[in-house]
């Protein structure tokens, strides 16, 4: 199969270092991967073309790049599945500074992994033999430890694009790997200290649930789902005193009560009713909403068939004492 690779290049030692595009024509096997094509460029066309790659079988996590604009492993992507009019576009992974060509600087990525103290911290004494744990619990964790730290999720995270301080999907999934581990934390497997840390700004509540990390992950780790599970764990452990927790609870209460969202009260409930300075900060937005006719109604009425919504809640959570 003939492929035109349109590759973003960057030479930091050039007189005027700037990213630029270069096209290479290469021929690969019909079921060849994007990595096969990239290696052809490096071996046959231009040895100065730099990329990281090693295992060729989606396990070392070296070759995450953007292929046609989306992050993925070059070695896991069959060229014939992504080729468009004979062309495949390859750029370095996003949200990390480019070092050279497709090589990016992972320092920020790893710093955030370090922030979650990524090692098992049991509070009790170790058993002499193995910890007893259910196979289901371990299989669930293995779904997360399957993460190869390739950075594809980090590359395409839309929160990181605007807020580089966000811990990001990989570090939070890594954190969940410990909070969900029955061996970590207290005798019931609850990792309170971790949850408290992750509850802070830049942590679990900063994800906007855009799903990009779930799409980008080549190993099915679904980082966003792990972040949502972290939130559940935090609420269950009693951490209600954050904007995120209050927002979630206010959102849920409103829908359960009336069948729809009471947008007017959502903001003060999320920020905290006594949090005057934060509330004042929202005043310009409120004024704009009013002047543009977007003010939610002051009286929030129940939807006529809100009972059915409550039934859904009952079904998921079990009936509440009312």
């Amino acid at each position, binding site marked *: 199969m003939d492929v035109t690779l349109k590759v973003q290049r960057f030479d*930091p030692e050039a007189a005027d270092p700037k990213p630029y595009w270069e096209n290479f024509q290469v021929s690969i096997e019909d*079921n060849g*991967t994007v990595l096969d094509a990239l290696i052809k460029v490096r071996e*046959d066309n231009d040895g100065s073309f*730099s990329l990281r790659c090693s295992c060729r079988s989606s396990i070392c996590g070296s070759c995450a790049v953007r292929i046609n604009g989306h992050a993925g492993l070059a070695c896991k992507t069959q060229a014939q599945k992504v080729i468009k009019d004979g062309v495949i576009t390859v750029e370095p992974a996003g949200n990390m500074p480019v070092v050279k060509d497709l090589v990016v600087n992972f320092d920020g990525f790893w710093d955030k992994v370090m922030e979650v103290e990524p090692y098992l911290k049991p509070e009790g004494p170790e058993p002499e033999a193995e910890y007893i744990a259910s196979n289901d619990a371990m299989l669930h964790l293995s779904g997360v430890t399957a993460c190869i730290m390739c950075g594809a999720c980090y590359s395409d995270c839309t929160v990181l694009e605007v807020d580089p301080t966000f811990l990001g999907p990989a570090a939070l999934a890594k954190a969940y790997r410990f909070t969900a581990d029955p061996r970590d934390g207290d005798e019931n497997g609850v990792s309170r200290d971790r949850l408290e840390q992750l509850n802070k700004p830049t942590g679990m509540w900063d994800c906007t649930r855009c799903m990009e990390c779930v799409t980008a992950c080549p190993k099915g780790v679904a980082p966003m789902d792990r972040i949502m599970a972290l939130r559940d764990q935090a609420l269950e452990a009693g951490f209600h005193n954050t904007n995120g927790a209050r927002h979630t609870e206010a959102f849920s209460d409103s829908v359960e009560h009336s069948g729809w969202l009471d947008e007017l009260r959502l903001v003060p409930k999320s920020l905290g009713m006594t949090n005057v300075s934060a509330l004042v900060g929202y005043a310009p937005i409120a004024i704009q909403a009013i002047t543009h006719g977007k003010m939610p109604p002051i009286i929030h009425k129940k939807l006529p068939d809100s009972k059915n919504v409550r039934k859904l809640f009952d079904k998921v959570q079990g009936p509440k004492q009312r």
Partner: protein
Amino acid sequence: MLEHDVLVIGAGLAGMRAAIAARAGGATTAIISKVHPVRSHSNAAQGGINAALTDRGDEWEDHAYDTVKGSDFLGDQDAIEVMCKAAGQALIDMEHFGVTFNRDDEGRLGTRAFGGQRRARTFFVGDFTGQALLHVMFEQLIKSGVRRYEEWFVSSLIIEDGKVCGVMALEVRTGQIYAIRAKTVIFCTGGFGRVFEPSTNALICTGDGIALAYNAGAELMDMEMVQYHPTTLAGSGVLISEAARGEGAYLLDKDGNRFMEKYAPNMMELASRDVVSRAEQTEINAGNGIDGCVHLDCRHLGEALIMEKLSQIREIGIDLVGADMIKEPIPIRPGMHYAMGGIRTNVDGQTNLEGVYAAGECACVSVHGGNRLGANSLLDTIVFGERSGKHAAEASRGADYVEFDVNKAVRNEEKRIQELLDRPQNGDRIAAVRLGMGESMNRNLAVYRNEEGMKETLNDLKGLQERYKTVPVDNKGKIFNTDLVFGLELGFMLDCATPIAMSALDRKDSRGAQARTDYPDRDDENWMKHLVIKKGAAGPELSYAPVSITQWTPEERKY
């Protein structure tokens, strides 16, 4: 000045285990790796890690006997005893570190069957055990506070009067050359898979440590013993885990027959790897294969089991050959996989050079002899990584750094590398030289070997060594110059290739992974011995070393 009591080269499982043990032993410790630790090739071990746990009725002696038999009686029995005795605790340590091993119905560690073993003693995490272990070991490395040099390439080992002084290293991100002083150096640099083409090995497996040690005067042992894995994927040659057969998969010829009946009527597909690879190659050579492959059939295992325990190799089949093992057999063939040989060490990782240690695939203790059992490699890395780290920490306590002229060493290394960069274009390419070497090795040092073929390869290697002296490096820059790294790696690979071919040619019998059509039988009278190879003034020098036999008398191997 960068200096450390213990400097570990390579950050796979053996390296990180060694560094953690050295740090725990009180030594100032650093680990240096040409890739980030979690990119290391320990990742690629899929099937599991062996250990005989006494609390479930297994005995280390049984594990040891299976290992001795698997090695075709070339493994050193004293070393195998050390490994198998330590296995249980090593496994439990890894579980306590946080590895998410699959469990049995009672919540205890679960096992699967593996090749060449009479009972199921392979502990596993799905079909990505190596990756699971590697990432957990990295977690422990972080916790230990060991200094990490990530993406630093060791280009030379410095030895003065037979004692280690340190290494020269290239920081890949900046192109700077540094000298790092060390009282002890532990090589944990993995195997030399890329010397062969194709190979299951990652592109980073270029035998760096073996070549560095060999060039500095270290002895290599059993270099002829190169494992061809029975199930490597058609085309790219990437690994399809033995776990598939451990869970019950069949090997089928073109007519759908389970041909292993003819070769290993008791163990069938779970005979030792050398036996299965030879059987496959024999069938393929006899015209019973399918396009140079045979079939691995998992269909009868059912979707549920495949999704729980073999999901990643299923993905590899879909991604790389477009075949879903739930629905159809996948084409596989024997492919170069593992080096049983390497830097000769004792059970504490010590080599013949003072202060130089080795552990993991780059070392030859020898616990694998002529053929390694599946799931003994992860065990080897952890047990001997830890022992090396402990011993090196102790040895460096109270020891002094060996003095050497650091500035001169840096200048010389810079000059050597600049000369490599300054070579004019001549139409040759690094990749072309490597491919020439890899194809020649795979043609003549594969499952079946003979004198004529191996002499041809030795001759090819001479020509390739000449080409290597002038092969140009395209990239002249400093920052992340991977082309320069490939140039240096190619030199290391060529340094490994000749000892492999010379040892194989010298051994005039068939044993373990070495099957010679011109000497088809095992000849214990003349060849029950290790081949040792060392760099002499006039070239490689071969000698012999006895095999340690403690309690298992060599016998004919049948599966």
